[in-house]
């Protein structure tokens, strides 16, 4: 009985490591990787060929170095990580969703076929064996005590892995990975190099798969193609899904339920005579059914991923003012209270008066631009210079040798009828599409052809026509993540840093984020998942993110789309705020009264061409603008 328990716990620790590794790839980074079990298998094979002796014919396999187990294990981990790097470099470059999954499925089948068919590698279908009680001889353990020792060894490694994962989960790196899962475009727009980040997560996950494989090889003392199948990953997926994707405690719970419990409970079913396959088949049916049912009825799992909850002082009247910033799991709250200065800073900044409720229904009366805007002396230098920008799709020329410039400290409007090429121009400037020709200078630096995250890091950030929040993250996390910081976001800083570094944000950033949320009237929603907000609120979150990122130029793509007049006033105030804080603005818009009110300078595009350029007033009398866009509608 005890021995049985020991073997279950050992298996549990090994599968726990496997599932935690998979959670990095699928739970956080969001990639459905079907190659994962290949990394486990490679780790197991490599551990075996490194520890066992030279093959005796007819057996054939590579290496056979008889290395000590503790040397072989890290080498096995590195080989799995390398294979993960190769697959990831190919598959993560352009592929997402099912295409990524299909290519990874292909990768693991190639490995499976190689392991099974190419005999000189791992002795084909015979597989490898002969790793008996590694470390046991050196320690002089008998069989019985070796079982306990190996359980202790696996449990120790499992705990180390769990602590590692807990730290990554709560770090800025972990949050950045989740932003990829939630919305990649937004992540790129705010400076994340998605390819590199995803690759890091993928290699990390593969390495843990290899580690678990190395332990598994020692546990089984042998490994061959009938011991694994490429689809084995589905069992691990069911564990991660049932427990709670992204939540490391949930993942462990999932392993206990889906691997240990399902496996062990079916073990006690009576054997059906002559039908040896029934029990394992039943187990797999249960796993498949649970997978489908959880996807359908509880996709977040039993323990949903917890988000960081910010307890603002004014949220909890009379309650202790806790400035807790632990990662969602496993850490005790930090009980330091914010200083009086912090609290002063958090007090709401007055927002420009909004129209009375009755007035909101009526069309707002737009005032001339300069009456109440903060005094800004428009600088004459250009922040953005576009020369000869050109892009065609098939036979359609979307942007036709456009040249224009936007001045520093000003609001530049970009208007034109539908299909004029405005949005394409925004995509070209921000790096989301590659121009066919032309140059783009941002503050004197040529940025054409750079990837979106590089442009964003230079200080040019764009928004999208429909708000692209990270729906599964809280509003506060959305705002905090708007600021990209190379230092803060490395994996190592999350792992080895002290308390301060472990946090997703520094205290000053947190204070600033709260202030910005208060300014936009979102403070009550700061712990809400951004995906639950209304369209207008999402729009405000987008503005709050820009405010947090403090770019030197922001391109707003149709910020007034679907926005009511009250919200419109807030947006006008926000744009004025950008200018006041040193962010130049380009606005793509159809709402002309709005453009007239906020823009210093307007560029008119039509059919890919810039047809006019100047202050709004000058455009009223411009015949080509009237023909192309303004028409006869009185302004």
């Amino acid at each position: 009985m005890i021995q049985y328990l020991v073997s279950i716990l050992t298996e549990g620790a090994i599968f726990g490591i496997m599932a935690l590794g998979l959670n990095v790839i699928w739970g956080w980074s969001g990639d459905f990787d079907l190659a994962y079990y290949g990394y486990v298998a490679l780790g197991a094979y490599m551990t075996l060929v490194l520890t066992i002796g030279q093959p005796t014919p007819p057996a054939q396999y590579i290496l056979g170095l008889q290395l000590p187990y503790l040397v072989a294990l890290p080498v096995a981990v590195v080989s799995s990580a390398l294979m993960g790097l190769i697959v990831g470099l190919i598959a993560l470059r352009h592929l997402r969703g099912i295409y990524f999954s299909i290519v990874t499925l292909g990768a693991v089948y190639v490995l499976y076929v190689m392991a099974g068919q190419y005999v000189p590698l791992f002795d084909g279908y015979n597989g490898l064996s002969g790793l008996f009680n590694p470390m046991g001889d050196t320690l002089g353990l008998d069989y019985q005590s070796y079982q306990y020792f190996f359980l202790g060894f696996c449990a120790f490694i499992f705990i180390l892995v769990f602590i590692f994962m807990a730290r990554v989960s709560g770090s800025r790196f972990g949050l950045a990975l989740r932003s990829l899962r939630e919305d990649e475009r937004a992540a790129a727009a705010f400076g994340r190099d998605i390819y590199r980040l995803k690759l890091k997560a993928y290699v990390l996950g593969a390495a843990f798969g290899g580690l678990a494989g190395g332990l598994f090889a020692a546990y089984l003392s042998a490994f061959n193609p009938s011991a694994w199948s490429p689809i084995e990953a589905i069992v691990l997926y069911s564990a991660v899904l049932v427990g709670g994707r992204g939540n490391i405690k949930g993942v462990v719970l999932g392993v206990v339920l889906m691997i240990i419990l399902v496996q062990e409970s079916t073990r006690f079913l009576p054997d059906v005579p002559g039908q040896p396959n029934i029990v394992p088949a039943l187990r797999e049916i249960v796993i498949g059914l649970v997978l489908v049912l959880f996807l359908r009825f509880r996709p977040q799992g039993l323990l949903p991923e917890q988000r960081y909850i910010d307890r603002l002082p004014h949220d909890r009247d009379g309650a202790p003012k806790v400035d807790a910033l632990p990662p969602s799991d496993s850490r005790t709250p930090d009980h330091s209270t914010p200083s009086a200065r912090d609290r002063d800073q958090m007090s709401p900044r007055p927002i420009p008066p909004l129209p009375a409720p009755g007035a909101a229904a009526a069309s707002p009366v737009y005032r001339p631009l300069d009456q109440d805007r903060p005094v800004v002396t428009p600088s004459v230098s250009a922040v953005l210079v576009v020369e000869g920008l050109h892009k065609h799709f098939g036979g359609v020329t979307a942007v036709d040798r456009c040249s224009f410039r936007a001045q520093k400290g000003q609001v530049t409007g970009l208007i034109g009828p539908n299909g004029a090429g405005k949005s394409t121009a925004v995509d070209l400037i921000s790096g989301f599409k590659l121009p066919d020709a032309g140059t783009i200078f941002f503050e004197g630096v040529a940025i054409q052809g750079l990837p979106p995250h590089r442009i964003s890091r230079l200080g040019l950030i764009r928004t999208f026509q429909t708000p692209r929040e990270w729906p599964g993250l809280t509003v506060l996390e959305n705002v905090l993540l708007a600021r990209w910081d190379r230092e803060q976001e490395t994996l190592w800083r999350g792992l080895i840093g002290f308390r301060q570094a472990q946090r997703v944000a520094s205290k000053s950033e947190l204070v600033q984020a709260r202030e910005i949320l208060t300014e936009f009237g979102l403070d009550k929603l700061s712990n809400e998942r951004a995906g639950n907000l209304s369209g207008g609120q999402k729009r405000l979150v987008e503005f709050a993110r820009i405010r947090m990122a403090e770019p030197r130029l922001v391109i707003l793509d149709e910020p007034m789309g679907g926005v009511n007049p009250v919200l419109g006033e807030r947006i006008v105030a926000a744009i004025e705020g950008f200018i006041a804080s040193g962010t130049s603005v380009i606005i793509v818009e159809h709402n002309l009264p709005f453009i007239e009110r906020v823009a210093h300078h307007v560029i008119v595009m039509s059919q890919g061409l810039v047809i006019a350029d100047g202050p709004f007033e000058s455009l009223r009398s411009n015949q080509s603008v009237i023909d192309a866009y303004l028409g006869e509608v009185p302004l």
Partner: protein
Amino acid sequence: MHEVLLTLGFGLVTAAILSLSAVAFTLEYAVTNVANLSHGEILTIGAYAAYLVHQSTGSALLAALGAAAAGGIVALAMHTAVIDPFVRRGFGTMPTFIATLGMSFVIQNVLVIIFGAANVAYTIPQGAPHLVGPFLWTSAEEEIIISALGITAVLYVIITHTKFGKALRAVFQNRDLARVTGINARLVGAATWFLAGLVAGYAGFILAESVGSFNPYFGFSFFLITLTAAVAGGLGKPFSTMAGALIVGIALEFTGGYISASYELAFAFAILATIILVRPRGLFANARRTVFE
């Protein structure tokens, strides 16, 4: 030259089966935007249904009809029980995709419980190989090719010349827009899956007949080749899928004949990965896609 032609002949048989399987897969994809990972199991069920019918009646024709009927029913059940609830609730591509993988797991193991994991084989006479033009085919293989051509012609007429086919194409282009214009997307989805199931079930039968024996996992490994053909043709495009199947089927027969049959699967995936990376929209599309475009 003679040997090349012989191999080409065998390749055409593989391609005929593959094109039916791949067309069925791509039709499923077209109406629900789901890459059905349990597609291979429809083939497996078709093969087993034909086996049962043939054992009790002894008629190859009835076996073929039984395979098609079983495939149709299973595909319709998949659509009703899993696919449609996921699609209707807007669960997105990935969860549905994962659910189909779970479904494949369930069906394989239900088949293991019912039929056991061992290989079974038909006792349908294949006929002696004889020369048909330059190719050496058995009469069973002849029937496979002729029936595949016939089914393809029927599918062509259904998709391009009927109101149902029009609705199907509309749903593929834009599901919501199709619904707004009064198309019952659920019904079109269910009918298309049923139709695809008929074709896939029959494909399972002729595949099992041509391979010789089968077991509960046999559809899944063929599915991986199906996937290669469907992606080569461009997902969701039935007719270029057939061309993809022709290319992949013949290519596999040549690698099987000239390199080694045991690496066939690995080779199929090498083709698949290359196509996805270089021409993600299929061999016959002319646009290259990146993450953001």
